[in-house]
């Protein structure tokens, strides 16, 4: 193991060109993936041409393509990708909470798959805390439960969703647990269910604020 620790620096290699032998990649340092601009990717170019003003930026990282698009153009972009570019399969969608960020609190992320050449792309939109996001249930049926989960966990409202209810938590639950300001240890939900049995505490809202 001592040999590996004393890895010759690039200058030393120039001095002694015969060695060292190339190490197998698992003994070498990890190769951290880099970000790169991907606006000239064929799918990005097609989307930018097909839905005007939809593409804001595109980023390639670790072999994956992330396209940031305008929320107002989301449904058009999704429909275009499905109908014209063959992305028939919505793999999954989720959201990420960045409470401090100025441009908008949430990232809503969709990723989709094309069977012809096994290509995957990811769409990202930025949504503010009070801003609702258009639903894509009209494009892919499978997004129904995914959007309900995002609503449940983040409180992002999807406009036009056929049945936007909580899915994993119960209807009376107070708060959206995957938001960064929700405590990891949870909240006292007993008071919300049986206020006469658990009069104190009662979750993040006090009685004056309209909580149980």
């Amino acid at each position: 193991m001592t040999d590996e620790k004393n890895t010759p620096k690039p200058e030393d290699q120039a001095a002694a060109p015969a060695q060292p032998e190339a190490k197998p990649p698992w003994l070498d340092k990890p190769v951290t993936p880099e970000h790169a601009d991907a606006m000239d990717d064929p799918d990005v170019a097609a989307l930018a041409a097909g839905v005007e003003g939809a593409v804001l930026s595109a980023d390639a990282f670790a072999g994956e393509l992330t396209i940031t698009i305008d929320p107002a153009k989301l449904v058009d972009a999704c429909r275009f990708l499905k109908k014209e570019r063959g992305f028939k399969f919505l793999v999954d969608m989720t959201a990420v909470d960045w409470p401090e960020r100025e441009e908008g609190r949430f990232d809503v992320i969709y990723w989709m798959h094309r069977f012809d050449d096994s290509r995957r792309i990811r769409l990202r939109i930025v949504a503010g805390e009070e801003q609702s996001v258009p639903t894509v249930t009209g494009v892919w049926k499978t997004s129904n439960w995914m959007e309900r989960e995002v609503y449940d966990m983040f409180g992002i409202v999807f406009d036009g969703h056929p049945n936007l209810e909580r899915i994993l938590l119960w209807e009376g639950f107070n708060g959206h647990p995957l938001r960064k300001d929700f405590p990891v240890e949870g909240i006292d939900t007993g008071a919300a269910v049986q206020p006469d049995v658990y009069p104190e505490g009662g979750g993040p809202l006090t009685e004056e604020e309209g909580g149980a």
Partner: protein
Amino acid sequence: MMGGPLEPLFDVEEMELSFGPQHPSTHGVLRVMLKLDGEKIMDAKPIIGYLHRGTEKLFETEPFPQCIPHTDRLDYVAAATNNQGFVVTMEKLLGITIPPRAAYIRMILAELGRISSHLVWLATHAIDLGAITPFFYNFREREEILDLFEAYCGARLTLNTMRVGGVPFELPDGWVDQCSDFIDRFPKHVDEYEQLLTGNRIWKRRTIGIGVISAEEAIEMGLTGPPLRGSGVKWDIRKVFPYDHYDEIDFEIPVGSNGDTYDRYLVRMQEMRQSARIIRQCLDRLPEGPVMAKVPKVLRSPEGMVYASVEGPKGELGYFIVATPKGTTPYRCHVRPPSFINLQALPEMVQGLLVADLVAVIGTLDIVLGEIDR
């Protein structure tokens, strides 16, 4: 089967039935609100969340390596593939290449996990449909697999058996022979199960034409794994996006044609044989060398988001990790649970069937509530 409202059979009021969450045939704490006309299902609404533990929230509080035990508890009958999904995603994020021996050990463990998961599926699915005998055969073989897991890592179900950069342990003495012996016998055991069920008239009457879903509909509903392949779509993550060293292994993707419960049954039976074939090849070619790559003591992430998926026994199991610069915990880690998305197709698949067939369709989707509710 799909589409418009169904005509009532008799002039009686529609009945609501709450099926589950404690019913043994729901395979966990799944509750289905049924609207019934006599015994015909007019509408079904799955209600989930009884097993929600906030796993995704917990990921955000744990250093990367400590997230792995949480993944065991998602699909708790096939923990090895859960571990594999997480570590493969982490390796993609950090740019780590693992030693070949580690990749082969991972493939062996994952395929053993797939076989044991399919055995649990077959045992419970058959019992739900009135065939009790396969259960005893299935659990006999499953016991041997769990013994192999125990010999390797000390745990039988919640394995925690993979690490970012490889696997934690070298195979113990005699393990390869024990595993090899089991794998040589296993295809004969599958013959036994098939003898009990494949040509069985009652089994065929209970499964053929039940819970049909077309290939187009399956893609639209986001199905993956055996439910998608049962409808004739030849698609498997191990072939499409090979991870570890699956690209060096020779195996087939079994597909069905009718998209019914019987075809999905046949697909899974074939998958068990293919898994045995994969393990055989891995054992024969098991390379020498270390089982862990050289990774930093403290894993620090670059900024970015990655998604990687593995072919779990239930379908595509993906992990999506958002990382901050020099972060030691995931900023956000989302799991794409195959069962959650497959279950969404349940209402469409059971509309117009009888209540007894609902049990067949829940069984054939092979759901695990730990993964659905997270």
